[in-house]
C-alpha cells in the first residue's frame, strides 16, 4: 500500500472485481498479439490480392474460410492486419507513455519536492501545456515534418505528460511532509537519495495507474491521427488507418470499419478497466 492511500468502501474492488479481470484478460490478449504477431498472423498482412478484394467475414454469407475476417479493398487479409495493428497500437501506446512519463514525472516530482519558484514554473508549464490543442499540434508537427513512427511517438510523448506531472506533483507534496522523509533528512541523506529512495517508491503506485490510462489515451490519439492521414504511414496496418482506408466502402460493406473500430474500442476499454482496477487496488488518486 502506498503512503497516501485512501480507504475504499464497497464490496467488489481491485482484483475481486469482475471488470478488472475483464480488463486484464483483454490487455493480456493484446500483449500476446503484439509480441507474437509475426507467429499469429494467418497471412502476410501486407500481401495484396486484387482478385480477392473485400471478401466478407465469417458471419456473412459467401465467406472464404481462408480469410476469417474477410479482406480489405486491396485484398489483404483483415485478421492479419488486425493482429499487426494491435502490435502497432501497443508499441505506440507504451513508447509514448515512456516518453511522456519521463517528462511528466521529472517535472512533477521536482515541483512537488522543491516547491517555491520551481513549483511555480512547473504549474505554469502544466497550464501552458493544457492550453495547447493536442490533436491540432500533433497533426501540424507530423504534417510539416513528415509521417514516421519515431516522430509520432516523440510528438505525442511531448504533448501528453500533463497528467503525469499533475499526479506526481500532488503526491510528492503529500509524501514530502511525512515522517519517514523527515527521518531520512535527519539521517543525513542527500536530496537525490531522499527523492529516489523515499519519495519515488511511495508515489510509484499512483504513477502506474496514470501510466495505464495514458497508454489508452495514446492509443486513441494514434488511431485518430492515423485516421486523419497524419499518423502511422501506410502500408502499416494501424487500426485508425484501416478505418480511414476502408471509409469509402463503409456504406456498402459496414464491416470494414466495424472490425478495426471494435478492436480499438475493446483494447482502450480493457486498458481503462485494468487501470481503474489498479487504482482501487492501490487506493491511488488520479484526479487532475
Amino acid at each position, binding site marked *: 500500500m502506498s503512503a497516501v492511500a485512501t480507504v475504499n468502501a464497497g464490496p467488489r474492488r481491485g482484483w475481486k472485481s469482475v471488470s478488472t479481470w475483464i480488463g486484464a484478460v483483454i490487455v493480456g490478449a493484446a500483449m500476446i498479439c503484439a509480441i507474437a504477431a509475426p507467429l499469429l498472423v494467418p497471412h502476410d498482412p501486407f500481401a495484396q490480392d486484387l482478385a480477392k478484394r473485400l471478401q466478407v467475414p465469417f458471419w456473412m454469407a459467401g465467406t472464404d474460410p481462408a480469410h476469417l475476417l474477410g479482406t480489405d479493398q486491396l485484398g489483404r487479409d483483415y485478421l492479419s492486419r488486425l493482429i499487426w495493428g494491435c502490435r502497432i497500437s501497443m508499441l505506440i501506446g507504451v513508447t509514448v507513455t515512456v516518453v511522456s512519463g519521463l517528462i511528466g514525472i521529472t517535472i512533477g516530482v521536482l515541483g512537488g519536492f522543491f516547491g517555491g519558484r520551481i513549483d511555480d514554473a512547473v504549474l505554469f508549464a502544466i497550464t501552458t501545456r493544457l492550453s*495547447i490543442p493536442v490533436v*491540432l499540434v500533433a497533426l501540424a508537427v507530423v504534417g*510539416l515534418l513528415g509521417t514516421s513512427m519515431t516522430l509520432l511517438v516523440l510528438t505525442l510523448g511531448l504533448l501528453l505528460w500533463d497528467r503525469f506531472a499533475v499526479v506526481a506533483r500532488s503526491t510528492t507534496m503529500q509524501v514530502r511532509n511525512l515522517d519517514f522523509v523527515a527521518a531520512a533528512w535527519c539521517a543525513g541523506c542527500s536530496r537525490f537519495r531522499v527523492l529516489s529512495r523515499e519519495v519515488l517508491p511511495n508515489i510509484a503506485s499512483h504513477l502506474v495507474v496514470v501510466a495505464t490510462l495514458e497508454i489508452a489515451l495514446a492509443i486513441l490519439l494514434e488511431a485518430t491521427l492515423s485516421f486523419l492521414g497524419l499518423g502511422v504511414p501506410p502500408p502499416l496496418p494501424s487500426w485508425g488507418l484501416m478505418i480511414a482506408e476502408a*471509409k469509402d466502402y463503409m456504406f456498402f460493406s459496414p464491416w470494414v470499419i466495424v472490425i478495426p473500430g471494435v478492436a480499438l474500442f475493446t483494447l482502450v476499454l480493457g486498458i481503462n478497466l485494468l487501470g481503474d482496477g489498479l487504482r482501487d487496488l492501490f487506493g491511488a488518486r488520479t484526479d487532475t
Partner: protein
Amino acid sequence: MLSFLTRRLIVALLVAATVMTLAFVLTRLSGDLATSIAGANATQADIEAIRKAYGLDRPVLTQFFDWVGRALTGDLGNSYFFQTRVSTLIAERMPVTLTLGITGLLIALFVSIPLGILAAVREGTGFDRAVQMVALLGQAMPSFWLGLLLMITFGLQLGWLPISGTGSWENFVMPGVVLAFSAIPALTRLTRAGMIQAMGSDYIRTARAKGLSRASILLKHALRNAAIPVVAIAAVQLGFMLGGSIVIEQVFALHGVGFLAWESIAKNDFPVVQAVVLVLAVIYVALTMVADLMNAVLDPRLRV
C-alpha cells in the same frame, strides 16, 4: 478579489505569450519554409522569389517580432493558399466550430447532470454501476469511429439525418452527439462525486431535519454546491472540444476552423496553422479564466 483577478490575468497573458512563441517555433520546425511552399518541382529562382515575397529572407527574430506585433493588433498575416487575410478566414469558419462546440457541450450537460445526480442518489446500486460503466464506455469510444457508425445508421440506413454539410440544425445533431461523448464521462463522474460529497455534509442533514422535501434538498441545496466544479469543468471542456472538433469536422465535412486547420496542414499553409493554434489556445485560456472566476463567484472560499 482584485489581487486574485490580476494574478489570474497575468498568468493567462504569460501562457498566451508562451503559446504564441511555441506556435511560431512549430511552423519553423520543418526548416526552410520557402522550399516547402514552392513544392517539389520549384527551381532555385522560384524559391528565392518566394523567400523574398513572404519576408522569409529576414532574420528569424525579426520575423517573430513582426508576427507578434501584427498579431497583437489582430492581423494574423495572409494565407499562402487562399490569398486572403488569415483573420478573415478564421472569422468565417468560427461560427461553425462554435455552434458545434456549444451544441456538444449542451448535449453533454443535458445527459451527464441528470445521470450524475441519479447515480449519486442511488450510490452503490446497480443503476450507479451502470452509469459508471457508461462513462467508461464513453471514454473508450474513438470519436471518429462513432461518427462513422452514426453516419451509416442514421444517415444511410434510417435516412433521418444528413451526412454532411452545414445547411440546417440537423447537420449539427450527429457531430454534436459525437463531440458530447468526449465530455460526458468526465462531467458525469464529477456530478456524481460532487453530489455524493454534498449529500453527506452537515447542511444537508440540517435541511433534512427541517423537513424539506427530497426534491428541494437535492436540487436547491446539494446540486448548487455540486455544480461548482461541474460549471468550471464544463468551461474547460468547451475549450478541449473546440480543439478536438478538428476530427469531427473532418468526418462530417463541416467547414469550421478545425477543417481549415486540417486543409492548411495538408497545403503547408503555415500562417493559417500557427494562427489557428494561437486562436484555439487563447480561447482555452480565456475559458479557464472564466471558469476560475465563476468558481470564485459561486464559492467565496476560493477567493484568497
